[in-house]
């Protein structure tokens, strides 16, 4: 483990930003802290960096307790959300800063600094901007300079706070692929904070889902997407339909239908929430006798792109259900707006209410 977070608690006044958070980050991994704004993910990142002090708990770097260490002694690289480039310094001086402020004994020579800075600027492919000032750069360029600056001090750990948050959609996509490639090249243990599930799922080796100051789930992108452990994770990662239901003897009752479950066999009459992804909703024109389903009216069709999105209204309730199907299947079924269909949920996950 290169970073260990042990029982971190942090309050701001009456607000509990982090409530007993523990986390292990193995060496060389790229980990995403994912959660809605205000969930405490940035606070956790800042505590790891030493920019914030926890009320209790400890941070270990490579097994050594770093909680009491000053920021400047932690050897972390930190990329700020708005980059925090020094406005009055050129790109070159920004990157060189961390080397220049070292005490005389450990400070590299000017020639060495120059060599290192250019090396880093080449790494981020922006060597040609060395003499510019930050205000003259585009958002994506600033982002990469901020990264080069953070790497200049050869950090043991790289921390990025919403690294793509301030960029527009296109640059964002490019940069996150670039960050992934860079990480594969450098293998520096990295943690980044994001509220964008797509970003976390695409870039990270592992995703840490945080909600209300607590870790909900840790796992590979595949794991957290396919097997969410809580209603929150279900809702936060991807679209999902949610049905209030009752669980009784291994069956979930939703409205007037009953679905067989693979769990909760001993549960008696407990209210629960059932979750179904839109692509797990099967649609049929005819009622099936061997399968429990709802009758619904097609209230809206979005047919742009490879997938067709349907908004359906159950006949027995006013609740809206979202379904996704391929263009092919859509044409096969010849669905029309206002028409009646039958829907059959697959892969239903049920969470009991407590």
């Amino acid at each position, binding site marked *: 483990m290169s970073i260990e977070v042990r029982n971190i608690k942090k309050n701001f006044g009456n607000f509990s930003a982090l409530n007993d958070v523990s986390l292990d980050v193995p060496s060389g991994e790229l980990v995403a802290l994912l959660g809605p704004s205000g969930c405490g993910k940035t606070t956790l990142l800042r505590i790891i960096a030493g920019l914030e002090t926890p009320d209790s708990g400890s941070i270990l770097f490579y097994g050594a307790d770093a909680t009491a260490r000053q920021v400047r002694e932690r050897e972390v690289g930190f990329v*700020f959300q708005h980059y925090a480039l020094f*406005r009055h310094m050129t790109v070159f001086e920004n990157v060189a800063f961390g080397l220049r402020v070292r005490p005389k004994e450990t400070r590299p020579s000017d020639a060495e600094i120059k060599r290192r800075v250019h090396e880093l600027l080449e790494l981020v492919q922006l060597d040609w901007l060395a003499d510019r000032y930050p205000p003259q750069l585009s958002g994506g360029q600033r982002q990469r300079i901020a990264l080069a600056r953070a790497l200049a001090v050869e950090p043991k750990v790289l921390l990025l706070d919403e690294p793509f948050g301030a960029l527009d959609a296109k640059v964002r996509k490019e940069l996150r692929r670039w960050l992934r490639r860079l990480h594969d090249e450098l293998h520096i243990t990295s943690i980044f904070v994001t509220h964008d599930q797509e970003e976390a799922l695409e870039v990270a080796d592992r995703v840490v889902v945080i909600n209300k100051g607590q870790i909900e789930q840790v796992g590979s992108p595949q794991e957290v997407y396919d097997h969410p452990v809580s209603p929150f994770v279900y809702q936060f990662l991807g679209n999902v339909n949610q049905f209030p239901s009752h669980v009784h003897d291994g069956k979930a009752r939703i409205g007037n239908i009953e679905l067989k479950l693979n769990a909760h066999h001993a549960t008696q009459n407990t209210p629960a929430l059932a979750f179904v992804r839109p692509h797990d909703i099967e649609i049929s024109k005819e009622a099936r006798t061997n399968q429990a389903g709802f009758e619904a009216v097609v209230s809206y069709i979005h047919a742009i792109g490879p997938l067709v999105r349907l908004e359906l209204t159950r006949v027995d309730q006013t609740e809206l259900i979202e379904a996704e199907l391929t263009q092919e299947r859509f044409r096969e079924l010849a669905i029309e707006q206002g028409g009646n269909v039958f829907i059959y949920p697959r892969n239903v996950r049920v969470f009991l209410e407590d």
Partner: protein
Amino acid sequence: MSIKAPSQYSHYHAKVARSRATSERAWVRWSLIATMLAFLALFLIVPLVAVFTEALRKGFAAYLSALIDPDALSSIKLTLIAAAIAVPLNLTFGVAAAWAIAKFEFRGKSILITLIDLPFAVSPVIAGLIYVLIFGLQGWFGSSLIDHDIKVIFAIPGIVLATIFVTFPFVARELIPLMQAQGKEEEEAGLVLGASGWQILWRITLPNVKWGLLYGVILTNARAMGEFGAVSVVSGHIRGMTNTMPLHVEILYNEYNYAAAFAVASLLAILALVTLILKSLVEWQSARSAFANEQNFS
């Protein structure tokens, strides 16, 4: 003077003038401009011109001799000394206060800001008076000062103290809002990169607020050199000894030596004009860098 077509550089004016609905008729515009010019002329321009005309009334030779009079020279020297001490002290204070207030949260912050403003609210005469109460003959430390043969009141230290008091808030007032607006992300970035507190201050914070700092220094200096009321109370008006330039002007004026009084006054007026020019330059520079910064965020 003529009303020009709105220039495209000033988009605001262009915007306003473009639509007839949101601009005034020509005669309204004209009379408003004329009223403003009359007002400024009556209160600012005519008195300013008068300083120089009165100063040169007896010719250039008399003007020069009034300036190189030993008493005048010593008053200039004292004014420069007072400013040279007051400006750096208040500058240091301003930076310290702005650092504490802008970069940290603590209880009583707004009270502290109000207290820093106090000297603006106090009449200069009272600013002088309070130092007389402390260091004067019958003051708190009066007798012990006499015992050690230290003179504060009716001497240079008193003048310096009064000058510091009246120029106390200028730098802090400029820096606090500026540093608050800049946040502390850049400082934190410096910290993560291994910079010490002093390195952060010198290499990151101060370069970022340099225009505001300079602005504050210019205002402090102008007020320090021009202060009259506070200095008048503590100076004792000893010619060639404890007279600053404004006090020297007063003495000459009260002696009906008008030409000489205005001659020295003209130096102070030039100082004021230089101050205004520097101030405009600094404003222009900082607006330019702010504009550059804004551009890249959009």
